[in-house]
């Protein structure tokens, strides 16, 4: 249930961002949500969100859905590798790092998918700016949603 809810919210966020802020941001909101919820609840609660976001972005782009999903994999790998902290501040920092790195990897993979490796140096400032915003939003998300973090005695948000 939680997985579906997170996937739905992430998909809607992706569509809203593409509709409202296309050209100036790059999947900041869904990536921040996946990162912060993954840090709080574990990667298994965001596994459906990744393909949903990839589908929402892929059908509006000339790039294929598969590339968007592939671009989101580094973020999920980072979520698997990090340990969920017991302290609020530490978790926020972890969320920011995961979101920033994941967002950077997302942009790089999609630039490479478009056959533009030579464009990477020119696009680096924009990618870093987008990653910073994603990291900041993810850290804020962790702080705001801290009360819903995974704890040993609960199995799911709706359990």
């Amino acid at each position: 249930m939680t997985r579906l809810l997170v996937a739905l919210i992430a998909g809607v966020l992706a569509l809203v961002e593409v509709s409202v802020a296309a050209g100036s941001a790059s999947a900041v909101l869904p990536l921040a949500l996946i990162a912060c919820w993954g840090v709080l609840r574990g990667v298994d609660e965001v596994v459906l969100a990744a393909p949903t976001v990839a589908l929402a972005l892929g059908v509006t782009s000339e790039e294929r859905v598969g590339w968007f999903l592939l671009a989101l994999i580094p973020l999920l790998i980072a979520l698997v590798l990090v340990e969920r902290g017991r302290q609020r501040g530490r978790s926020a920092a972890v969320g920011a790092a995961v979101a920033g790195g994941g967002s950077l990897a997302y942009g790089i993979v999609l630039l490479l998918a478009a056959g533009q490796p030579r464009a990477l140096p020119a696009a680096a400032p924009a990618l870093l700016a987008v990653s910073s915003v994603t990291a900041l939003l993810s850290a804020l998300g962790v702080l705001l949603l801290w009360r819903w973090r995974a704890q040993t005695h609960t199995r799911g948000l709706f359990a």
Partner: protein
Amino acid sequence: MVRTRNAAWLVVLLVAALGALVLSPLRFAGDLEARLGAAIAPVMASLHRAARPASDVLLHAGQLSALTEENAALRDRVAQLESEAATLREGRTAEEQARALRSAVGDATYLEASVTVLDPSPGRRGLLIDRGSAHGVVAGQAVLGPGAALIGVVAEVQPTAARVRLLDDPRSAIAVALQQSKTPGVLAAGPEGLHLDFVPTGSAVAIGDLVLTSPIGGQLPAGLLVGRVQAVEARPEALFTAVRVEPYGDASRLLRVLIVTSVQGSAP
């Protein structure tokens, strides 16, 4: 246990991504993506329209000084163009330009379309518009933006939507010619912006020359305004001259575009 399950999820997603990529060249997969895109296009168009006033303020609030400078530069440019236009009116070039514009604008049939979304991929430059094959749109038609300047070409068509590949997309290549010297070239996009390929060294190219579409290749009607030459770098040892082009159409804030559906006497 948890780590094994997470690793399994990652493997599943990785296989799904690779599977989607392997299947994507197949016709049904591309059609499915395009149809899904066309299905959600109206929702996104509504979101876009509803949120545009607020998003404009939020997204451009930090650019006020840059916009002020841009405004001043544009005022200078308008004054310069007005002066140039007055000079051109007196000369033969003006006659040619007027004839080119008449043939491109006067005899053409247009279709108006709304921009639904800009391509979200950082490596692509494209638009989704709300007109498709049901309205007479076919792949290869020219798409015009502000000032009737060419901004791109229709790349894919669905019954009620179409995808426009903008001039600055890395896969875009348009046959063009310089208005004054008739020097032909291919307009392509690179990391530094638009440039002309295959302009032989020694060709007559000057900064400010107008770049128009060329009938060579039969892809687009001739004489559509594309941009102007921004910089020229001719090296004697090189086969081709490096020519940078400043486009006239800015697609980043577009709401409406015109699709050239037919041109009298030439194929669109």
